[in-house]
């Protein structure tokens, strides 16, 4: 303390008017300074402490990304299902639950949610997205055969603003859906060619390559890569559906994503 007192008075004596600080005054200021240091150290330590998560924090971030994680959500421990669905079963299942011929009006709501989930986030899809507001006449098909090539499109979806005003579809998309690593690139040009014949304009068409982890393809630039996790997290957020069969079906998709 004497050293601090000497230093303080030495500094004070450089001022035009000399000051002499009492021992008590220096003691008091040193104490205050120490307290400030203590507080600063505590603040720094606090900033480095791992953040304690609250249930509300977790709800906000996980529900924000996956949608409300309640019993009607498709996320479920995959191993409890006991077996995997195959790729064709998944694509056929999607089409079955999205077809209003099977499930009425609720299917159309699901379908629009599905399309939005596929198309969102890309400016080139804006016209397709805005067309959904007035779209009514949807056509959806799994394993659609292209007779000239004997190949099958995994999922085909077309729609018009008004029912049956054209043999062609004004809007639509073709989905090549894969869970494995191998995509048969040879089939993609054939599907693109087929799309030219069934849709009015390529500008109102999307070619979607739906995979677990594939990114942009240089060889097939017109195909938009979409990953299953992106699709399913968005679709779940868009759904408000209590159909337990549909929930159970989506669990098979989530199981394949988890695998």
């Amino acid at each position: 303390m004497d050293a601090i007192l000497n230093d303080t008075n030495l500094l004070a004596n450089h001022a035009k008017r000399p000051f002499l600080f009492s021992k008590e005054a220096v003691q008091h200021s040193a104490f205050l300074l120490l307290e400030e240091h203590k507080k600063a150290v505590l603040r720094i330590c606090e900033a480095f402490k791992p953040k304690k998560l609250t249930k509300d924090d977790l709800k906000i971030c996980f529900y924000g990304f996956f949608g409300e994680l309640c019993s009607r959500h498709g996320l479920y421990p995959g191993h409890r299902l006991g077996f995997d669905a195959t790729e064709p079963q998944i694509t056929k299942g999607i089409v079955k639950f999205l077809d209003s011929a099977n499930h009425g009006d609720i299917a159309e709501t699901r379908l629009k949610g599905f399309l939005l989930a596929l198309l969102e986030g890309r400016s080139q899809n804006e016209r397709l997205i805005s067309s959904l507001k007035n779209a009514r006449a949807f056509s959806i098909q799994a394993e659609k055969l292209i007779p000239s090539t004997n190949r099958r499109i995994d999922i085909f979806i077309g729609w018009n603003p008004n029912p049956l005003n054209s043999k062609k579809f004004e809007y639509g998309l073709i989905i090549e859906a894969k869970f494995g690593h191998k995509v048969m690139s040879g089939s993609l040009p054939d599907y693109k060619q087929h799309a030219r014949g069934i849709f009015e304009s390529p500008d109102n068409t999307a070619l979607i390559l739906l995979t677990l982890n594939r990114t942009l393809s240089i060889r097939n630039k017109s195909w938009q890569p979409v990953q299953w996790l992106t699709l399913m997290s968005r679709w779940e957020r868009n759904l408000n559906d209590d159909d337990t069969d549909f929930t159970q079906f989506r669990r098979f998709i989530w199981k394949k994503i988890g695998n």
Partner: protein
Amino acid sequence: MSNTLNIPESLQFYFENEQQASAIQQVIESKSISIGLTWKEVEQYNIAKVSALTTQLDYWLLMKELWDVTWGKALASSVYKEVDSEDYEKTYSAESVWDDCFYKTYTFKENVICFKCYADDEGVYLGFFVESPNEQYDISNNMGLSDQWEKPEDDERSTQKGIIDIKGKTEIDVEPLTNLANEVVTKLNEQV
């Protein structure tokens, strides 16, 4: 050392329902970010990723605390020697403990003794095995223990389900497991 363990809110959320648990697992398992997400979705995903990893770390801390108050207490005055930490390789990491269990391994004479603990939505468990030379597990397999210990399965002994529930709890009293750990260490002292 108290027998009451606080359950962090991250783990309360994890054990609350299967969908929430699956979402955390999904994010932990994702090795890279899904492409095609909007900026808003990327922000949500990144926060979810850090939160999922924090949950994994909270689980590691809880399991270490559980191990300390059960096996740790029971072994405090034992003559067994713990193996060097390098022998654990990566199995003491948060990822490994999350996927499997928290364990420590000890040696005595020519026996290797593994003491472990873990939790799932059906409860909190202890487990152990004694490996003698030539991969023999007779000591632990034949050990006469109370009914709260399961019969040997895959040459391991585990406590039964439901002794301590964790789902819906903000804290758990692990004294029953502390007693079960003491029971095993007492029996081991007589046999090995």
